[in-house]
């Protein structure tokens, strides 16, 4: 038995060591979050100076739409937004030579469904990020912490009214998906706020939440549950979903054996089966499936628009936006470049790419 005792004593020592390392991890985590704040301040100053430097170059390009015809007078005290745009934008309004106006025809100013107000999102980027504990300990010992604040979004403001279909365009990595995540409440913005009823939102991104080892039927239930349907609802609408996705006869098959088009069809069908999802967010979804399914899904979106849903679409494809949207938002490298009619925004966007 003495061997046993020895072994256990040794293991006990190991335990103490592991506990100590665990504590250091936690401590370092908290010290990181403190440093984050100071880093942010520094960056803010930097971006401020940069902004002013570039203003002259940009002022020509930037077109602002915030001055709606009746907007300023109609705004009640409970209706937030429009006026509260960032100071830099106000300057742009005065400097910019062409001011674009949205047709306010169908939309009541009080009917703002999503209001994005001065949202800034900063990520803490660790220079050559260390995910291993050894590196972390070494750095902690040397007291070296290299952080860089990376701002994915800078001072973005726009409103979405009930029943609008808003397209968000921008090149890769310019923060489109980030703004969707902030709107849907997955991420909390660093600065600014988003006013929206989060329970109404339905986010649809490609192939998310599908388990490839399960059958199509099981995935419908799993995904439906996650989206927020209850069992009775899925039972009642199951056939409808299958029919829309055109997957009759495939539902008992594992999703592993599906083609990518089939997966996204099913995802689209599940997400849009609800009678009126009040706010639907589509992340690069409309450009999948074959031509016929695309037409079908576009039709579905138009139906939902008529039923009063608000739709936000993120896409690289300007044709998708021109065809489906009533308003377009162009975000470039985290800056809001343009808000306005889809045609005009897309045109400007395409020009930039030339």
């Amino acid at each position, binding site marked *: 038995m003495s061997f046993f005792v020895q072994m256990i*004593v040794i293991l006990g020592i190991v335990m103490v060591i*592991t506990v100590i*390392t665990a504590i250091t991890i936690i401590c370092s985590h908290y010290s990181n979050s403190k440093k984050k704040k100071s880093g942010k301040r520094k960056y803010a100053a930097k971006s401020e100076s940069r902004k002013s430097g570039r203003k002259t170059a940009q002022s020509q390009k930037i077109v602002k739409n915030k001055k709606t015809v009746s907007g300023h007078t109609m705004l009640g005290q409970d209706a937030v937004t429009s006026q509260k745009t960032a100071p830099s934008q106000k300057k742009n309004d005065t400097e910019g030579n062409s001011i674009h106006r949205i047709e306010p025809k169908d939309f009541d100013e009080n009917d703002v469904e999503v209001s994005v107000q001065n949202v800034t999102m900063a990520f*803490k980027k660790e220079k050559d990020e260390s995910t291993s*504990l050894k590196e972390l300990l070494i750095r902690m010992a040397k007291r070296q912490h290299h952080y860089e604040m990376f701002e994915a979004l800078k001072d973005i403001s726009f409103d979405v009214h009930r029943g609008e279909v808003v397209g968000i365009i921008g090149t890769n990595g310019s923060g489109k998906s980030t703004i969707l995540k902030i709107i849907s409440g997955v991420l*909390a913005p660093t600065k600014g706020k988003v006013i929206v009823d989060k329970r109404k939102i339905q986010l649809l991104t490609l192939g*998310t939440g599908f388990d490839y*080892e399960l059958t199509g039927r099981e995935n419908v*239930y*799993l995904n439906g549950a996650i989206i927020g349907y209850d069992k009775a609802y899925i039972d009642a609408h199951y056939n409808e979903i299958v029919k829309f996705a055109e997957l009759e006869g495939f539902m008992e098959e594992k999703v592993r054996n599906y083609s990518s088009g089939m997966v996204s069809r099913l995802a689209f069908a599940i997400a849009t089966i609800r009678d009126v999802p009040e706010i639907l967010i589509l992340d690069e979804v409309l450009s999948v499936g074959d031509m016929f399914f695309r037409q079908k899904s576009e039709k579905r979106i138009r139906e939902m628009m008529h039923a009063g849903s608000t739709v936000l679409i993120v896409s690289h494809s300007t044709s998708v936006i021109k065809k489906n949207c009533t308003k377009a938002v162009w975000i470039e490298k985290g800056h809001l470049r343009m808000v306005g009619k889809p045609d005009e925004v897309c045109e400007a966007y395409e020009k930039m790419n030339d």
Partner: protein
Amino acid sequence: MSDSENRKQYLFVIKELTSREIKRKYSRSKLGIIWSVLNPLLTMAVLSLIFSQIFRRSIENFPIYYLSGYILWQLFTGATNAAMTTLVDNKLMLIKVKFPMEIFILARVYTALVNFGYSLIAYVLMLLVFRVRLTAAIICIPLVVFFIMLFSLGISYILATGYVFFGDVKHLYSVLLTLWMYMSALFYPVDSLKGLVRVCILNNPIYGYVGSMRRIVLDGQIPTTFQFAQMVIWGIVVYFIGHTLFRKNRNAIMQKI
């Protein structure tokens, strides 16, 4: 949506996630769900075969002595190991959800509980084979299971939070678990130990649960007051520590993911 409706929906989600975990575990095998019972049964058979030859002199009815600890240990490790990685595994789903992230952790812990249920079937078979006479004290078993679940849940919250930031936690934890297993007196009698080690083992939360389970099954008696206190306090305290830690880091977790 009202609170009760929300709760109902959460339960449905947990149920779906759990059924997914169980289905996919044996999804490529022919026997499928039967493995859930067969696997622990075979393992137990092998273990009892081995351990009825070794150690038999020091402990009466050693296979059951070991298995009582073993199933609880499996419950604990199954729950914590699975829950640790759940946030990273389900990162795509997390973006879509409208309910608290805790659901994913709860689902994995609940999965472990369901697996424990299957193991329990095998365990009861073993009890029959070794002719263990049960007494009314078995009504305490649900209590033991409940508090070990609470304890596992607390640990799971801590681990899941840690794992999001440091992948190392996983490897560290597997080492820690080995150590913990030896410290939990799963397959040797505590009476033979002395000094510091004995104190450590007696105050080990897992040993509290394992000890209670043994007392219920082997001695046919309800756990002592000390054991009860140990179970309840460890369960509740660890749960609250884990939960607060998780709550505080929510936003940071989302950003990291």
